[in-house]
């Protein structure tokens, strides 16, 4: 019995008056720490994709299609700029949304259903709000990394002509987190993996990606298709609209 007692004495030295005090104060951070540790397992693919995706998207769409579009649209460009500069910031916001989706969809559902780690967290003195905030914070870290890398690629391609273009980064982070919260709300309510995430991907994220003025100004669409742009979630239009404003400010001051 003496062995048992000494174990207690050891841990007690680190606790305050109440054993939940530290969890109440720092619970969110403990959850974030847990998520970041999990991410470390696939760190190599996070880093590679973060660098690789902007490079190939900017190259294929900005430079490849861009060469056709710029030749076709002549001096006035698309909304007054080269196509690469038009599409670049939109792709950056999209990358933030995609990252948010990855972190807030399957991992959140899995935390309830597969790994059941949320139940474990709740069995320790960490409450539900801390779990949500912790995951969101961890997602935020990943988005910061992804969009920063993306912005560097934009700069390297010459797609961010003014220093104010860097404001695209906080705009993308905000958009990503807002979107992540919505996905998390859905994920936490799913009881079964019935394929809802592929549905969200195909019927919400893809149209949002394609019809929110990302690749072309919405008025380029035939009138009978513009509704697709109008119904695509306001969040996305605002997000991608924000980058337009960032771009305008950027070009205006340039």
């Amino acid at each position, binding site marked *: 019995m003496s062995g048992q007692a000494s174990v207690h004495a050891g841990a007690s030295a680190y606790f305050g008056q109440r054993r939940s005090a530290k969890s109440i104060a720092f619970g969110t951070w403990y959850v974030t720490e847990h998520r970041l540790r999990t991410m470390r397992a696939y760190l190599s693919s996070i880093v590679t994709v973060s660098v690789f995706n902007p490079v190939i998207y900017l190259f294929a769409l900005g430079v490849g299609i861009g060469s056709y579009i710029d030749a076709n649209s002549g001096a006035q460009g698309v909304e007054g700029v080269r196509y690469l500069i038009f599409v670049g910031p939109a792709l950056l916001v999209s990358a933030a949304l995609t990252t948010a989706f990855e972190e807030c969809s399957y991992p959140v559902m899995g935390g309830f259903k597969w790994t059941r780690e949320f139940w474990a967290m709740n069995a320790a003195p960490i409450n539900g709000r801390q779990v949500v905030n912790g995951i969101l914070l961890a997602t935020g870290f990943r988005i910061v990394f992804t969009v920063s890398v993306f912005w560097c690629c934009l700069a390297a391609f010459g797609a961010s002509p003014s220093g104010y273009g860097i404001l695209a980064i906080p705009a993308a982070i905000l958009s990503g987190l807002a979107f992540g919260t919505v996905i998390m709300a859905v994920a936490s309510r799913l009881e079964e993996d019935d394929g809802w995430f592929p549905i969200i991907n195909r019927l919400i994220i893809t149209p949002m990606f394609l019809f929110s003025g990302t690749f072309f100004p919405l008025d380029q669409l*035939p009138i009978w298709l513009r509704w697709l742009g109008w119904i695509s979630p306001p969040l996305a239009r605002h997000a991608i609209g924000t980058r337009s404003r960032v771009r305008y400010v950027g070009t205006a001051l340039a």
Partner: protein
Amino acid sequence: MRQIYAGRPHTVVLRALYALKTSAWFIVVSGFFEPVFYLLAFGLGLGTLVGSVTGPLGQPVSYAAFIAPALLATSAMNGAIYDSTWNVFFKMRFARLYEGMIATSLGTLDIALGEIMYALLRGLVYALAFMAVMLSLGLVPSVWGILAVPAALLIAFGFSACGMALTSYMTTFQQMDWINFFMLPMFLFSATFYPITVYPEYIRWIIKLFPLWHGIELIRGLTLGQFDVSILWHVLYFVVMIAVGLIATTRRLTNLFMK
């Protein structure tokens, strides 16, 4: 041969159809929309910015008619890869489904062929639906275009066979990510959105090694009326993919489950 093939791949298809019955219909239907969204956005939206591009016979074609066959080929690839990688990975490593099949008198080739046949069945439905959209938008000027549907199946067969072979060697989800990692640049660079003539000579040769480039050229040739000997080469490319994929998958499954 008797050790690996009982002549009953259709029973594996039957199993898949029973499984399909329990999955929600709107999920299956939603698979049709993705290429259509791309076609509308890029063909009609972006198309006005691009103007017309040069078709395979040197004729000017609308941007929508240029990318539509590429999107058909890409969706055949995506469907095939999804079914033969994620689905197969799950059945192999988590559900232990193949282990149960092997315990019966089925062979490993029955399993590989059955899974692929089912993926092709789904692919056929999607290809027909997409073809209907293409026709209704007037994007198939050539009568040979009707062959685009069997061509899409050939492409799907090639990707399924190779996808399944690769998947059988994977042990973790992280490794599965590398497949997407390879698919995205292939989608973006294989003359999907613009002719590869924008690239310097040596990059063009690299692109011509990619299977998707052959798929896109094959279908584009058919829908835009370039029906010549080059088609044979593209077909041959996929026949080789099918053969190599099937042999590799069967060998690997045999080694895994019958060691």
